[in-house]
């Protein structure tokens, strides 16, 4: 009796371990609990498999069809923390004489397994099959899955690590700067020339045009542009030169107006500020450009500033501005538009220089600190590239693939 039970237990254990080997459903790790990973591993005599999922009423619906004997697929859009029942139906292709069909007996039906799985089976579960002329042998397996919500996405671990390193670097330098450490920043060409351009405009008695780009206010480039505007508006107020700021969206308009107004206040000339200096044109890309072109031709500003996000309009603006003989300073992190600015403007802030500008101009220690922090980040990244390349050359890819965990 005891022996009998042991045998039975062994058989059950052996079978369940081996069933999991053939048809297995796993919770997809590190997600919000809407996906399951379904794996199967069957003998190569399989013609095709159907995987179905039972809905709440228990009715099966096919979710995946494959011709591969071994494979996996991810099912998404599931409810988290719910048990799902899947069934796998395998169809046998008409066996050739050379095929070895390995079968395992279960309650009534038989399973098609690989030879490896077959060797590992307890003898009680092994069975033989006489291949008959009707090749549609079917085996059915059931398995359950339970998608869970996770609290941390481990795939993003390297990302988190890098984020911490970079932001700590920036924060440390901000704190240092706050404590009064002297921080050196090298010259940035276009920025030194800004004051000169304003001076020229004052001499000529012509206005200054500032274009904050076509980005919305939620674009960091636009914000960087506005902090440069704050500096320029201050200078313009000091020199008593007219400043014109056409905006593409109303959010930028409100922000730009505040910025200019505040700068005039700081320069002690709140009376010189008029609301119409900063105005909205249109939300349309080329409509906006048409409007600015008109302003450039008619008002003939002596200095143009194009700072922020720019797309195709960059060259239209820069060339029209050139035609009026203005000193032009441009700056954008839009890599594809940089060539046009470089070619037709007097000074161009390339990429990061746009973000560095406000720190450079204001000499505000906290801003300088963050700029220093970014420089520290550059060193970190350059070293990472060098290390990565060295590892790759030496034939080991773990470093790159570790970072690549981020999907």
């Amino acid at each position, binding site marked *: 009796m005891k022996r009998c039970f042991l045998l039975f237990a062994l058989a059950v254990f052996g079978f369940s371990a081996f069933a999991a080997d053939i048809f297995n459903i796993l919770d997809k790790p590190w997600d919000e609990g809407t996906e399951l990973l379904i794996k199967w591993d069957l003998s190569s005599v399989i013609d095709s498999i159907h995987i179905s999922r039972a809905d709440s009423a228990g009715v099966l619906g096919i979710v995946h069809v494959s011709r591969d004997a071994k494979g996996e697929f991810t099912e998404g859009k599931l409810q988290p923390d719910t048990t799902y029942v899947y069934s796998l139906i395998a169809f046998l292709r008409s066996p050739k004489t050379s095929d070895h069909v390995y079968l395992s007996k279960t309650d009534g039906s038989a399973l098609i397994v690989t030879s490896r799985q077959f060797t590992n089976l307890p003898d009680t579960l092994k069975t033989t099959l006489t291949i008959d002329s009707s090749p549609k042998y079917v085996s059915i397996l059931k398995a359950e899955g339970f998608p869970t919500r996770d609290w941390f996405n481990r795939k993003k671990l390297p990302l988190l690590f890098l*984020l911490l390193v970079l*932001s700590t670097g920036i924060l440390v330098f901000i704190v240092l700067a706050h404590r009064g450490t002297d921080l*050196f920043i*090298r010259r940035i060409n276009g920025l030194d020339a800004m004051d000169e351009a304003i001076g020229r405009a004052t001499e000529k008695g012509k206005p200054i045009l500032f274009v904050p780009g076509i980005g919305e206010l939620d674009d960091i480039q636009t914000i960087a542009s506005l902090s440069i505007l704050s500096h320029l508006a201050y200078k313009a107020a000091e020199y008593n030169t007219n400043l014109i700021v056409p905006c593409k969206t109303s959010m930028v308009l*409100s922000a730009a107006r505040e910025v200019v107004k505040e700068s005039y206040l700081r320069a002690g000339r709140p009376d010189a500020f008029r609301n119409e200096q900063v105005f909205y044109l249109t939300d349309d890309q080329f409509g906006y450009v048409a*409007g600015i072109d008109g302003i450039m031709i008619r008002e003939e500003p002596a200095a143009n500033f194009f700072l922020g996000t720019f797309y195709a309009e960059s060259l239209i603006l820069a060339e029209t501005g050139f035609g009026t003989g203005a000193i032009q300073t441009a700056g954008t992190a839009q890599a594809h538009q940089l060539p046009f600015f470089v070619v037709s403007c007097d000074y161009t802030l390339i990429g*990061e220089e746009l973000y560095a500008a406000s720190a450079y101009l204001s000499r505000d220690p906290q801003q300088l600190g963050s700029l220093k922090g970014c*420089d520290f980040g550059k060193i970190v*990244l350059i070293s990472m590239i060098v290390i990565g390349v060295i590892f790759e050359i030496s034939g080991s890819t773990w470093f790159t693939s570790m970072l690549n965990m981020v999907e």
Partner: protein
Amino acid sequence: MLQFMNVFGIWLGVFFTFSIFSFLYKDNPFYKLSEQIFVGLSAGYWFIYTIYYVMIPNLFSKLIGDFNANAILLIPGFLGLLMLLRIIPKLQWISRYPLSLVIATTAGVSIVLSLQTNIMQQITATMFNPFAAETTSQMIGGLLLIIGTICGIYFFYFSKKQEGLSAIPSKIGIWFLMLSFGASFGYTVMARISLLIGRLDFLLKDWLHLIK
């Protein structure tokens, strides 16, 4: 009527095409006219577009359709209304709240996003073995890619005066930038000329019927 309106439409298009082109010669009443029509019309267009394609499907129809399920949309609706308070000078300060919500979120999102796509993916893409390339030119290319990227990043290193030894990588960085600017410029010429061809096509085909 239909026939007339079609022809009239083409003539309208032709008129505005030439008005904009006339700007290339110099500013003139035709350009001024089309400029202001463009500004006005496009502002109106985006206004209507926002109402029909943003506000109605995302806010109003959801609120009307199933209020309870979408009641949370009242929050952005309310914040939006706060934005409108800008019109009243005394209440301007209130609009700062939606504004800082928007900007804070963007700041958070852009930190993660630029870290992932612009830093992580770019640096891992640069980590490869250039010597594994099949041809010599591919190998040199790979080396150029790695060196160019590193020197290019160094060009943006602001903490050091660019003189002496430390000026060398940053100089190489500039060379790469210039090369890239030249290439992008040349590459874009084609696309820009096709825009002109597209316009000329309209004039020659739809208007003058000179070509098929």
